[in-house]
């Protein structure tokens, strides 16, 4: 009787623990599955940021994720903003790749106003020198982009490093003062 009772007690205990274990394991698996299926979109600051540079054109606005440069252009003279804006990789542990991509320009192709500019160049430099550029040159009445696709290749900026954009503008001798060209360039960053 005693042995039978002990066996019964042990098996009952084991069965109880087994059922309890199954319950806990299934609950854990369910909650873990729901975690893996939970999309997470966290608002955070960009890893690649713009920041003000020494030769930033006056009246420009520079924020982390976007900037507006109000550059000038002189007739028959190249105007260079050596360090117009910085592009910093604030990620302390990973390099990130980015490129410049043309989005829009006014005056648009075909407009007679296009003839008020000869070239507008955005050239990216690092401490070793030239890296890449996105250039707008004029063959009136059209803009010609270089690269012709309107987008550069991706270039990897090392961790905790700052590169800068050099802006060069040139207008023809017959350019009319007061004309404004607005260029929108996207900076595509690979996270």
């Amino acid at each position, binding site marked *: 009787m005693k042995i039978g009772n002990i066996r019964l007690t042990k098996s009952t205990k084991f069965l109880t623990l087994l059922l309890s274990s199954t319950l806990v*394991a299934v609950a854990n698996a369910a909650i873990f599955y729901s975690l893996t299926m939970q999309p997470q979109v966290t608002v955070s600051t960009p890893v690649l940021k713009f920041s003000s540079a020494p030769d930033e054109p006056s009246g420009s606005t520079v924020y982390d994720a976007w900037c507006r440069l109000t550059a000038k252009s002189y007739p028959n003279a190249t105007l260079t903003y050596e360090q117009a804006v910085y592009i910093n990789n604030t990620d302390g542990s990973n390099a990130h790749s980015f490129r410049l991509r043309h989005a829009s320009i006014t005056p648009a192709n075909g407009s007679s106003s296009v003839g008020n500019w000869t070239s507008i160049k955005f050239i990216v430099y690092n401490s070793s020198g030239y890296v890449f550029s996105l250039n707008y040159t004029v063959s009136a009445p059209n803009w010609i982009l270089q690269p012709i696709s309107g987008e550069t290749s991706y270039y990897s900026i090392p961790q905790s490093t700052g590169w800068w954009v050099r802006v060069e503008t040139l207008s023809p001798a017959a350019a009319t003062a007061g004309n404004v060209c607005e260029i929108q360039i996207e900076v595509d960053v690979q996270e």
Partner: protein
Amino acid sequence: MLLPELFSLLSSDLFLMLSLLTCLLEDRFPKSVPYVYQIAAVMGFGHLAVSRMFLSVFSEYMRFWYNIFYLATALANIVAVNLYLALSKNRWMLAKIWTSAVTFPTVFISIVFVYNYTYIQGAAFPMLMLNLIIVLIVIMLGITASLLLSPKLLGKEQRR
């Protein structure tokens, strides 16, 4: 992508396994031990529930550390049970079986998961420190296994 909560899931299952095994070997352990391990496993559920509730609040770094701590606790318990069997109960054969059937596989699987996770996450976590901890665990496991597999050596050490 691996989530750090995987360690909690694994640890909770390890505690459940410990609970069932200590229940099967109940004459070698205090009677309350299986239930204590059940409670420890339920704490794993708590870990996961908290992670789920505060997923957007807790950083991945923080989640990683509290989950890895829970995993380390589970592994420490497995090794402790192994040592308890070997040293307190002098059940060498059982301790050997426990080492090869429970301690080694669980530690090995855990190391693989941790390594894989840190590899995927890149340099976001202090890899060097983790590597040192893992190497330390493997060395300790090796020493424990060698002691358990040759109890005569241990006996000699104890007589000194």
